[in-house]
């Protein structure tokens, strides 16, 4: 199964709290009026320019093993290596909010409208991540006979030990060029506000791992804990 998905800009817009988090504000912190106003302005620009779309394609565990191995640069042990063999379904994904938003961010920075450019950049980053959250349930709804205890999480190259060069094998299988997402020699996607990865579907417990890998020490985000909690408590 391989499918193209599109959303309205409004559907792709991220939560304000997530954008403010990217701007350095902690949850519950009072947001000054002028920052709220800046967020409103940037959101209006985002809604005008965003073209959110994705492509998702099922992949077998055997095929994904090759994609995940990529160029052999992953660490010896990673969480996903233990997770995906237990999945009931796997699907590669690539999603983008489109190029127009990034172009506007660059224009704003060039004319020193830094605060607005940075806020728009944060909205676009959060929106791109949000697309993966939207794709998970959409993909599960396409699977015949979906089990009630199935949970879905997306995992992306560049995180949790999956080397960023893994995108080359991912792109080779998925071919997201069809929706305008390309990969440069440094494994950066164009448009910039794009994401790629794999959707892992199965019982919630398969996503559980202890963040004690060699690379976990350097990770400041620690989003894995919240992600695991989201699929284990449902």
């Amino acid at each position, binding site marked *: 199964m391989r499918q193209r998905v599109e959303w309205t800009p409004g559907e792709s817009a991220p939560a304000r709290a997530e954008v403010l988090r*990217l*701007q*350095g*504000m902690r949850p519950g912190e009072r947001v*000054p009026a*002028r*920052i709220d106003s*800046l967020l409103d302005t940037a959101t209006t620009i985002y809604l005008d320019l965003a073209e959110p779309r994705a492509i998702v394609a099922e992949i077998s565990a055997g095929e994904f093993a090759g994609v995940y191995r990529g160029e052999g*640069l992953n660490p010896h042990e990673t969480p996903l290596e233990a997770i995906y063999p237990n999945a009931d379904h796997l699907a590669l994904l690539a999603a983008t909010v489109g190029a127009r938003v990034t172009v506007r961010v660059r224009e704003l*920075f060039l004319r*020193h*409208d*830094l*605060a607005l450019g*940075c*806020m728009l*950049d*944060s909205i676009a980053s959060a929106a791109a991540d949000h697309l993966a959250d939207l794709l998970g349930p959409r993909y599960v709804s396409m699977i015949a006979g979906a089990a009630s205890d199935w949970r879905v999480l997306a995992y992306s190259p*560049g*995180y949790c030990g999956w*080397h*960023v*060069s893994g995108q080359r094998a991912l792109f080779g299988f998925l071919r997201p060029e069809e929706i305008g997402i390309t990969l*440069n020699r*440094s*494994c*950066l996607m164009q448009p*910039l506000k794009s994401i790629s990865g794999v959707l892992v579907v199965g019982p919630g417990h398969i996503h559980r791992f202890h963040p004690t890998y060699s*690379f976990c020490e*350097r*990770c*400041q*985000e620690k989003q894995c804990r919240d992600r695991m909690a989201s699929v284990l408590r449902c």
Partner: protein
Amino acid sequence: MTMLTEIAEGLQRGEDDLVGNLVREAIAQQMPPLDILNDGLLAGMSVIGEQFRLREIFLPDVLLAARAMYAGLDLLKPLLARDGVPRAGRVVLGSVQGDLHDIGKNLVGIMLEGAGFEVIDLGHDVPAERFVDAAEAHGASVIGVSALLTTTMPVMKDVVELVRARGLNARLSVIVGGAPVSDAWSREIGADGYGYDAANAVERVRALVK
């Protein structure tokens, strides 16, 4: 209130039109450009930097102030060049190859300019060779390298090793930063410094150029 104090306070409020007008007026009154820069613009940014370090203000506040700073700095730059006024130092900045995250790096660049440094920003996805080539071409004394992915951090080591291989380490320092980066990593790869946030990065660069 003196005009320079008005410039500094207008900058802190992010009033770029006001700061631009005041700088124009100061120039028209034959005030030395270096005084306008140091006691007006940089004084204002120094307060902003401290407030940001103490979490009294947020990133958007810093960027609004920076916009006001640029409103004045763009007017002063040709005059400073005419007078042969040296900057505090020259720094090459970039996010490493394979990394697109650059908001933190951009903030460091803004605050370095606010501290009187000249910044050559190479953007994101910068290979090690380009960092060092740019530093040599521009006569920079510091390279600032940013990474936000653990898988792109090794490029930082490539930059350090290339500086050493070209025999530049006596006059060219490398400072690293980014969310997954640490002081321990900085020492492990032989970098000359580590900045844990933008304000700290500026302090580290100041120490390196002394």
